């Protein structure tokens, strides 16, 4: 791999928006993602988080505005070329997939494979083994995916995304539906990936403390509009969160990486932060 120049943003989005009929689902918004950055996207259901991720992945062409990879517009890349740079782990996936863990992870090599070769090359297998090791699921390699738990499956799809050797890894709600132990496993994994410095990471999540712990910046979306994009200490304040989610939060711990607790018993006072 060539050394990463951290001064040029990996990804630049200018005025991108997404319309469905007459309704604007997302944007217009501007965004830059740095080469080693971890960006967490938060916002209520329907805020446009998944749409944003799909736009950034290049799966959805924006209705307007421009996306660029290191200054070059997305449309100059083929699907395959983009897939060598950006990997995506969607939240919604088919329920039954008749493949083994190893086969799924190997599928991540697709953008690097030549159609002429019958079998993947030795290097592809090396990358697959490395991805399995990175996610600590070597022991599962030969197991059918359908036999695994939700947490294990999530790990498998992250390994497959890593096998793509992307510069940017995009994950849609990777900890949703997981029990605390697996939430922790995934969070630690993302932390390791982020610290490895080979990938920039963009994650959409509802877990605010997870976002606070990992993020360099937190992007808050509300009804398709970017309401904030700044370090966790600025975005994750009770006043902000109450407003964003229309639910009351209590600050448990302040500082660079604040922690919050959702208040279940108290009624919400939306104007508490205005004074």
């Amino acid at each position: 791999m060539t050394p990463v120049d951290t001064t040029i943003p990996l990804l630049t989005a200018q005025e991108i928006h997404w319309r469905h009929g007459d309704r604007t689902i997302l944007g217009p918004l501007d965004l830059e993602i740095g080469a080693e950055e971890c960006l967490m996207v938060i916002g209520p259901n329907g805020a446009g988080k998944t749409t944003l991720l799909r736009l950034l992945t290049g799966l959805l062409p924006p209705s307007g505005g421009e996306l660029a990879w290191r200054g070059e517009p997305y449309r100059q890349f083929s699907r395959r070329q983009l897939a060598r740079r950006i990997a995506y782990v969607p939240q919604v996936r088919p329920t039954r997939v008749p493949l083994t863990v190893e086969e799924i992870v190997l599928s991540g090599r697709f953008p690097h494979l030549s159609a002429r070769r019958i079998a993947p090359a030795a290097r592809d297998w090396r990358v697959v083994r490395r991805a399995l090791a990175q996610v600590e699921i070597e022991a599962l390699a030969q197991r059918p995916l359908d036999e695994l738990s939700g947490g294990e499956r999530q790990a498998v799809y992250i390994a497959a995304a890593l096998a793509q050797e992307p510069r940017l890894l995009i994950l849609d709600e990777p900890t949703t539906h997981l029990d605390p132990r697996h939430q922790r496993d995934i969070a630690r994994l993302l932390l390791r990936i982020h610290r490895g410095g080979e990938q920039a990471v963009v994650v959409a999540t509802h877990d605010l403390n997870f976002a606070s712990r990992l993020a360099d910046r937190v992007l808050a979306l509300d009804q398709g509009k970017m309401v904030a994009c700044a370090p966790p200490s600025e975005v994750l304040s009770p006043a902000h969160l109450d407003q964003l989610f229309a639910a009351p939060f209590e600050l448990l711990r302040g500082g660079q990486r604040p922690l919050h607790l959702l208040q279940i018993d108290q009624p919400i006072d939306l104007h508490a932060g205005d004074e």
Partner: protein
Amino acid sequence: MKKASRKLLLIAVVWLAVLVVAPLLGSHAVSLADALGGDSTAATILWRIRLPRVLLALAAGGLLALSGLGFQTLFRNPLAEPYTLGVSSGAALGAVIAIQTGLADSLLGLAVASFLGALAAGALVLGLAMRRQGIETSTLLLAGISISLSASALILFLQYFADPTKTFRMVRWMMGGLAVVGYREVAWLLPWALGAAALLFFLRRELDLLLTGEELAASRGVDLSRLRWWILGGTSLAIGSLVAVAGPIGFVGLIVPHILRRTVSQGHLILIPACLLGGGAFLALCDLAARTLMAPVEIPVGVLTALLGGPFFLWLLLTRR
């Protein structure tokens, strides 16, 4: 992988056995010794009638199974095949129009007409089922059924107004059969079957990736719309050329890939040759049954495959999770 290749080898052996044995059997059994030993009747039956027919069945069955395989993977639905998606009916409508207008006097005219019919039906079904997020399979199947029904109604309409000889030709042809063939038809269809296999082989990795869902496949670099058009276009060409010589033969494309997927392999590297050989052997055996069960009367092979396919379709519907 090793086990799968061994199973593929077994299918190849069965295929060879069918190729050798099926021409010897029929309403009048022929021995190889007679045919080679100067018995001219036996030689004529074997070389001029039965062998081309078995060869055509092998090619046609392979092509049908491959078309079904492509559609089932592309649409992630075991019920998708040329027959259920209306592509076969579209081809049949094209062919009936060709018979009615006299275009069908040449094989090429018949083939072009059925190809256009197949492509139009396929594009219509695909267009109806396309959503922003991808293909909606329930809409796809319903659209396929409505296209099938409409095409069948138009065929009946044309038959009603056709003169009796043409009507008979249409009706007999619609049943799907391999009865009156020579090497010309074999030479016509074989390249299509091999071409379909080559096309799918070239796209095998894309097809493997589709097993993980459209969204993930696209995120890994699969150009979905290009893939859809290749498979739809390729299949329509192949089905059009098949329908031109053998009429619409249903359900081979449904049964064979589904069974092979369950028993042989999920990977398309193995599945593609398995379908080419397995589909061929299956249709040749059906044809053997069609010409021996009620001998000397022949059952059109399309009727027989439909008799098998109907219950199989139902079983799939009921056991689908």
